[in-house]
């Protein structure tokens, strides 16, 4: 009985919310600008100066902008100066956020030069994504340090609750994955891999939360995954053994495959480059895809309400909300899996660059 009542209440609330959504959407549509799905999607997935607050399109939490202008002078000001489409005169340079779709800097901070042309300055602003990264890093430090404090205080007692879960995950990643692959090198590379895992996991999960501390599409941004993949790339190749390089430039294959035309070395060399590329694109595409599907499902409400009226929009809302709920649950799983896959592949790549003993070639 209790369950039935709960279900009925939930459906009623959902329907009311859907109705409200659809009505506002259709009203929106009739009134002013039409819903532009593509723009909305990329606005939500992209990086912005300032952080949106719920239920408002114009109000944003201001974030600091740090930029070096054309002369190399440093400029710092809050993003609220420019987010409204204004031009801000800071010292002898004026800045605004470009709206020019052809200039290639749309949505980015540009310096307006004397002749009216736009110059993209060296931009070190604390944007939404940068702040998101810093929050994620702070959370990871907080989690790790809380576990450390527990061990300091309680010694041999097993942690409970959240710390117990953390320990379980560390055990799963380190003891069950990194250690068997790395062997006795695990303590050397374990910290990097664990850091990468928890950083990615935290960023992934933060991306699923819609309001302030979350909501930034971090791991669905190519810059973020590129940095992570590059670090793995450098760790792999800078610590690679002689044998690793020998296997790339002079592999154990018939002479014809490597002497006149260096076919195998070329393929192996490409392999060095494709490994981090795959790491970068896999994480990026998975997280971006998840976010995009949720946004599209929600946008369907607006689009349908605009096209067929409020009632259809309301109907769509129920389905959309349920589907996006399912997608978010799935994304939670994907967040973990992708963080784990990144760590696992990094572990394998690094350990593959550390072959010491010469494996006996079987030629006969």
């Amino acid at each position, binding site marked *: 009985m209790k369950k039935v009542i709960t279900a009925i209440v939930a459906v009623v609330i959902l329907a009311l919310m859907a109705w409200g959504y659809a009505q506002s959407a259709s009203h929106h549509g009739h009134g002013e600008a039409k819903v532009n799905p593509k723009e909305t999607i990329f606005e939500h997935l*992209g990086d912005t100066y300032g952080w949106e607050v719920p239920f408002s399109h114009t109000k944003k939490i201001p974030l600091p902008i740090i930029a070096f202008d054309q002369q190399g002078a440093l400029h710092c000001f809050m993003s609220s100066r420019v987010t409204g489409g204004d031009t801000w005169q800071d010292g002898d340079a004026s800045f605004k956020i470009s709206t020019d779709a052809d200039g290639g800097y749309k949505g980015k901070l540009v310096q307006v030069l004397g002749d009216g042309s736009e110059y993209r300055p060296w*931009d070190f602003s604390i944007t939404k994504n940068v702040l998101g990264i810093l929050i994620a890093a702070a959370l*990871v430090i907080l989690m*790790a*340090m809380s*576990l450390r404090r527990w*061990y300091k205080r309680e010694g041999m007692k097993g942690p409970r609750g959240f710390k117990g879960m953390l320990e379980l995950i560390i055990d799963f990643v380190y003891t069950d994955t990194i250690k068997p692959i790395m062997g006795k090198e695990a303590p050397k590379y374990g910290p*990097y891999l664990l850091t990468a895992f928890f950083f990615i996991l935290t960023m992934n999960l933060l991306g699923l939360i819609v309001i302030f501390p979350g909501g930034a599409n971090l791991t669905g941004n190519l810059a973020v995954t590129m940095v992570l993949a590059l*670090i793995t790339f450098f760790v792999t190749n800078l610590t690679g053994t002689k044998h690793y390089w020998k296997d790339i430039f002079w592999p154990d294959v018939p002479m014809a495959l490597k002497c006149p035309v260096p076919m195998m070395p070329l393929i192996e060399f490409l392999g060095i480059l494709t490994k981090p590329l795959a790491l970068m694109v896999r994480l990026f595409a998975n997280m971006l895809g998840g976010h995009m599907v949720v946004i599209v499902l929600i946008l369907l409400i607006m689009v349908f309400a605009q096209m067929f009226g409020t009632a259809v929009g309301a109907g769509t809302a129920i389905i959309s909300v349920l589907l996006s709920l399912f997608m978010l649950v799935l994304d939670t799983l994907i967040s973990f899996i992708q963080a784990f896959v990144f760590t696992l592949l990094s572990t394998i790549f690094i350990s593959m660059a550390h072959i010491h003993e010469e494996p006996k070639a079987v030629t006969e």
Partner: protein
Amino acid sequence: MELFKPEFGLVFWMFLAFACLYFILAKWAWPFIIKSMDDRAKLIDEGVAYAQEAKSKLDNAKRDADALLADARKQQADILREAAKMKTDIIEQAKAEAAVEAKKVTDAAQVTIEQSRKESEHQLRQDVGAYALQIAEQVIRRNMSDDKAQRDLVKKLLNEVETSN
């Protein structure tokens, strides 16, 4: 498409954040956490091994005690059996000794009886002799004249002796 163009500022901050995160965690968090976890795992493993050993020791002790008990029982049975045997032996011996003693006693009695019989025979002979002498005296005293009366008397007396003997 802005998403596919890595922004320099973001790359910079991401790298900086990751580097700081790595140095902080690699210095203070992960090695300590991993060591603590390993220590605890080792402690638990040792505890389990210890408990198993203790259990096997206990089982062994039980088995030993059982063996000891069985041994003691066997010894007890042996001792009892021996005691019983000893008892019968002693009785047998005593019996034999008693028989020998009894035989000695009877032999001695027989000897005594024989002796006393011989003595009494001897006595009797003396008595008979004395008696015969008395008779002969009387006969001689009474009937020196009458031979026939003497002879009858002797015969009569002899008959009397014979019947009394």
